[in-house]
């Protein structure tokens, strides 16, 4: 396609007019680090990478791409797990890495204004001097950026008590595909008109490019303490979670791991987990000193009554950190015991946990692939890690099939295909399971309201009806996913 190539050459040379030469990368070698995000099974080199450092540059780049009809994929640290930042071969990859400054910390109003390339943890580190912090803490918080967190509506282990990204931001500055700068939300607790802040959060770079974020800061709790409980039965652990909540206690974090995950984590970081347990629960309580003491006693009681074989309160801050280190290292720990693993991200109503774990166990046997389960038990977000070897013929394919079955199961029991990792390219077909065609059409219409040209991150997050029809047809022989309302192509 000579026309396309000419267009690309024109675009790249125009870009060099807008940005310093080192901020425009067009050689394959230079663009290699941008070819994938955290979901590395999908790789694609973009046509060109741009690394702007001012809002005006972002506006110019978007205007230029809009004029040339070139699609744009925005990218933060590239730690996303659903391929949301996967480049397009004919598109521009817009890296926000140079937007890495904390612009203001306003202690009196408990907020901070930051650029999108600031790392999640860096906000809390900067706020620590004032006894404050930014609550959402995805496991990747050392590396992931706040811009990406907003785009994905990231969670973390403290969501049940402190909410997701959407609950912890106030205002965004966003550049539209036409290059217009919008202010969405406000520094006040709400803003006039529709709640575009909610719409923008978790929109996976499809509605606008975020160039500034105002987040809420919270006072750091006086004390946090964690209780570890071991169970000889996964079902009992699941029951205990419900009992803690029924007692009127909202833990700051409530995590569950099954046997395979426990052993992998223990072998990796020596967190002191009981290797013979079928499941462990980590229950973190935070608040004032007296409050934490009161809740620790109550929780220990509930866990013991619920049949825990062992209940341990962290002896000191070092042990508390160690208990968490085991949990936060669960993914890399599983990475050590298997050549590859595939991380799923469904959410289910908590009461469905026994049924879902049993079904995953059965499917694990059917597919001949082992699964380690780590579970944000407080908020129902399940991360089954499917162990596989990509070098074995057909195993990746079988793993993906297995993963799809797990997500369909999550939808069947009233849950969702993604709790915090996003749809991206990875779960785009599963969107057809969760939503029917009128809902998907409504999503497309919402996108068009922000991006009429459809050039922002096209092909991600929301499938076309045609794609769903094909996906549905593909799966009819399983006797599942009836989509009688869809046209077949």
């Amino acid at each position, binding site marked *: 396609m000579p026309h396309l190539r000419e267009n690309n050459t024109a675009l790249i040379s125009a870009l060099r007019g807008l940005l310093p030469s080192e901020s425009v990368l067009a050689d394959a070698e230079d663009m290699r680090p941008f070819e994938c995000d955290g979901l590395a099974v999908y790789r694609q080199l973009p046509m060109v990478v741009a690394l702007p450092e001012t809002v005006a540059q972002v506006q110019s780049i978007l205007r230029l791409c809009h004029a040339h009809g070139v699609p744009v994929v925005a990218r933060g640290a590239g730690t996303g797990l659903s391929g949301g930042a996967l480049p397009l071969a004919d598109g521009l990859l817009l890296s926000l890495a140079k937007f890495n400054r904390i612009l203001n910390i306003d202690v009196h109003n*408990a907020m901070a204004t930051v650029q999108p390339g600031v790392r999640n943890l860096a906000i809390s580190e900067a706020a620590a001097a004032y006894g404050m912090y930014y609550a959402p803490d995805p496991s990747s918080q050392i590396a992931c950026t706040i811009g990406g967190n907003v785009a994905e509506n990231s969670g973390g282990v403290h969501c049940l008590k402190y909410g997701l990204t959407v609950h912890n931001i106030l205002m965004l500055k966003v550049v539209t595909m036409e290059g217009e700068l919008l202010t969405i939300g406000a520094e006040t*607790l709400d803003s006039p008109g*529709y709640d575009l802040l909610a*719409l923008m959060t978790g929109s996976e770079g499809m509605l606008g490019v975020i160039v500034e974020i105002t987040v809420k800061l919270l006072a750091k709790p006086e004390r946090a303490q964690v209780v570890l409980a071991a169970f000889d039965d996964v079902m009992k652990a699941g029951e205990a979670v419900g009992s803690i909540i029924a007692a009127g206690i909202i833990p700051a974090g409530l995590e569950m791991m099954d046997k395979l995950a426990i052993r992998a984590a223990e072998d990796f970081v020596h967190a002191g987990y009981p290797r013979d347990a079928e499941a462990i629960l980590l229950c973190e309580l935070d608040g004032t000193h007296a409050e934490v003491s009161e809740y620790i006693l109550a929780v220990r009681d509930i866990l013991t009554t619920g049949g825990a074989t062992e209940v341990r309160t962290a002896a000191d801050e070092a042990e508390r950190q160690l208990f968490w280190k085991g949990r936060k290292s669960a993914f890399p720990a599983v990475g050590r015991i298997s050549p590859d693993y595939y991380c799923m991200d469904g959410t289910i109503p908590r009461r469905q946990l026994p049924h879902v774990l049993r079904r995953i166990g059965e499917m694990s046997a059917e597919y001949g692939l082992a699964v380690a389960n780590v579970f944000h038990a407080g908020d129902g977000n399940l991360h089954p890690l499917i162990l596989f070897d990509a070098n074995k013929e057909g195993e990746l394919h079988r793993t993906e099939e297995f993963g799809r079955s797990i997500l369909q199961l999550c939808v069947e029991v009233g849950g969702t295909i993604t709790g915090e990792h996003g749809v991206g390219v990875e779960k785009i077909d599963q969107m057809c399971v969760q*939503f029917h065609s009128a809902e998907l059409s409504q999503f497309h219409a919402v996108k068009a309201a922000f991006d009429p040209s459809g050039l922002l991150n096209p092909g991600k997050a929301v499938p076309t009806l045609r794609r769903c029809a094909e996906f549905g047809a593909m799966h009819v022989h399983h006797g599942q996913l009836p989509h009688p309302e869809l046209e077949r192509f």
Partner: protein
Amino acid sequence: MSDSDISAALQQQVLDAFHKETPLSISASGSKAFLGNTSRGQPIDVTGHRGIVEYDPRELVLTVRSGTTLHEIEAALAEAGQMLAFEPPHFGEAATLGGTIACGLSGPRRPYCGSARDSVLGCKLINGRSEILRFGGQVMKNVAGYDVSRLMVGARGTLGIMLELSLKVLPRPSASITVTRVCNEAGAVSSMSALLGKPLPVDGACFHGEQLYIRISGSAQAVREARSKIAGDVVPDADAFWHALREHQLPFFKRNGTLYRVMVKPATPPLNIEGTWLLDWGGAQRWLYSDEDPASLRHRIASVGGHVTAFRGGKQADEIFHPLPASLLAIHQRIKASFDPKNIFNRGRLYAEL
């Protein structure tokens, strides 16, 4: 009242309206009819669509039909020791959850435990094409698709008729006390702002009649501990005070004239605007009776990064809500058209252009 599902009948009415391009004005008990611009159109009544669909206290999730009254919902939650964390104002005996969510109203607990919008997990709605759509769900974490459920909060029915809502609920704190002390407005603002930086279980802060009121809630131990760190006298029957504040039943709200809702950053020093003030939400939501020209008032508040609504007693034919910049208004119009292409729902209720 018994539960009933009238979604099919509502859908038929919307379909007729869609074909005939008849504007519809969504109504329930009418408790919030005073709030917003006058809506034009034939009334479509959702009060018959009522009942709790699902409530499992262990899940902390409640799913109800939109015509269910707040009274019924709060009674069911109280029985399980739980509550709506956003402490919604009712503004009427028969107030429904649908109206509360459509207006996006939250009470004194809002700055500390989240807003109506923060509680919403999922929504089933009828859009302007008469399609029944479901967004979000009954789980806390869900990032599949755009967050349309929360978009409905505060949209004042302009995007569709909400049929069912799933909300996150929370345990009621086992203990609560309110302390009060005399101070001036500037002192109250700085005290309330300082509380934001302290790890104390505060869930209400208000300045009214030269008195600062601070509510502390949580476990018995936590409340006792926090009480010793906050100066002031304990208010007897504090629930009645917060209830009267939430429902605008304090004598302050009995004035004549226009009541403005002024939203500013909480630490904003007292604004030099002629009128009578009451500060709620730790200073972030301020109520003002003023005779000042609405346009100049908007200008003054906007200059400190805030916005203002003519909440009660304004001219409902005029602009009630803070005007939007042109670029945002254009996006609002396109969003409106994407849900309601024939502009049948609550025409003009939020902005004349929607």
